[in-house]
Structure formats: structure tokens, C-alpha cells
């Protein structure tokens, strides 16, 4: 049972480059999220999705874009990488039907922008 899978696990970007962090889940969860974790901080919500075709901004959306064409996939795109986007990114999903609020997390993607 894979759960939430994120790729890549590590990436180094130059300022101004673009990239996409991939996230897929096999639990048929409606809700999916992208968080970023900076050193010594809790997680901050970047974007979330309540179902295929529906996305919305979280607390820190600037510099990012998302799409949700299928229930399984929720990629996060960085268009013009900046040093402030150096962080660890976590994708997560949750089950709307169970409605407990519990999130299932991927193992994270560590991004460095130089």
C-alpha cells in the first residue's frame, strides 16, 4: 500500500528555473494539500484541493501553481524559482467521507534554490 508518493525527494534549482513536484495518492482521497516546512517552523499550507478540477490558495501561495486533473494526482509547479522557496515540501491527502481531519503525508521533497 503506497499511500502518498512524492517525487523527486531532492532537487537543486538555480534562480529563475522552473520545476514541478509530483504527488500521487492511491487511497481515493478527495482532499489533497501542499505544505512547506521551513527550519524551526511548523508546516504552512500552500494550496489545497477538495476534488478533481477544484483548487484553492492556502496561506503562502505566491510563486506556486497547482492543478488537479485526476483524483490521484496533485502536482505543484514553481515557475520562477527564488531562494525564498528553499524548503521541504510535503504533499498530503485526507478522506472527506471519514471526515476526521486526519492527513496522510508523503515523505517530503527537499528543494534548494541557489
Amino acid at each position, binding site marked *: 500500500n503506497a499511500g*502518498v508518493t512524492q517525487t523527486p525527494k531532492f532537487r537543486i534549482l538555480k534562480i529563475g528555473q522552473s520545476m514541478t513536484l509530483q504527488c500521487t495518492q492511491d487511497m481515493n482521497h478527495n*482532499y489533497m*494539500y501542499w*505544505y512547506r516546512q521551513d527550519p*524551526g*517552523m*511548523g*508546516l*504552512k*499550507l500552500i494550496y*489545497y484541493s*477538495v476534488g478533481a478540477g477544484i483548487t*484553492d490558495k*492556502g496561506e503562502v501561495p505566491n510563486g506556486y501553481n497547482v492543478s488537479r486533473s485526476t483524483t490521484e494526482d496533485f502536482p505543484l509547479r514553481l515557475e520562477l524559482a527564488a531562494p525564498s522557496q528553499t524548503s521541504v515540501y*510535503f504533499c498530503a491527502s*485526507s478522506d*472527506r467521507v471519514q*471526515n*476526521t*481531519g*486526519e*492527513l496522510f*503525508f*508523503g*515523505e*517530503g521533497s527537499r528543494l534548494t534554490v541557489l
Partner: protein
Amino acid sequence: AQSVTQLDSHVSVSEGTPVLLRCNYSSSYSPSLFWYVQHPNKGLQLLLKYTSAATLVKGINGFEAEFKKSETSFHLTKPSAHMSDAAEYFCVVSDLAGRRALTFGSGTRLQVQP
């Protein structure tokens, strides 16, 4: 609006002694509260959750937490620390009335001394 305050950024205990990690919350709704644990270079794992059932919640690995509405607290405890408990712990409140996203505390790093 909702928020979480973890009162200690670092806690150090000796192996075999009790653990107390403190958390206060603020929420406009009847909250769901969680403790997540993050081991180094890993994703987050659910430790325990409170969802308006019993106020004393038992989780994995001997941890438990008590929901105290009058004190708006949700402190995490364990009677006897183990070396494997060394990790980062996050207190989290869930927005069940809306997007079901989580609001994270800033984390408490637990150090366990031999």
C-alpha cells in the same frame, strides 16, 4: 480563525522519565486536535487525535493527550521516555467546518538523554 501554540520549542528528558509536551489552541469551531510526530528526514505520522469523543486520547507508542476545553489545552504525555521517542512533535488543529486543512504549531523537539 484557528491557531496553535506549542509552549516549548525544545524539551530534554532522560530515558525512563515522563514526557510532557504542551499545546494550547484557539478555534472558532468545535476543534479536532492532533499530535503528529516527525522523525529526522521523514514525513509526518499521526500519533493521536481528538474528535469530540473521549477527552483522554490514547495514541501509538504509549503516548496520550487530554483535551481540556476550559484551559484550551491539548498536552501530550508519556509515562516513560524511550530513546526512539526523540523527534519533532507537532500539535495541530483541523478546520473541519471548511477546507479541512490543518493549522500547525511550530513544533517541539524532544531530546531523550541516555
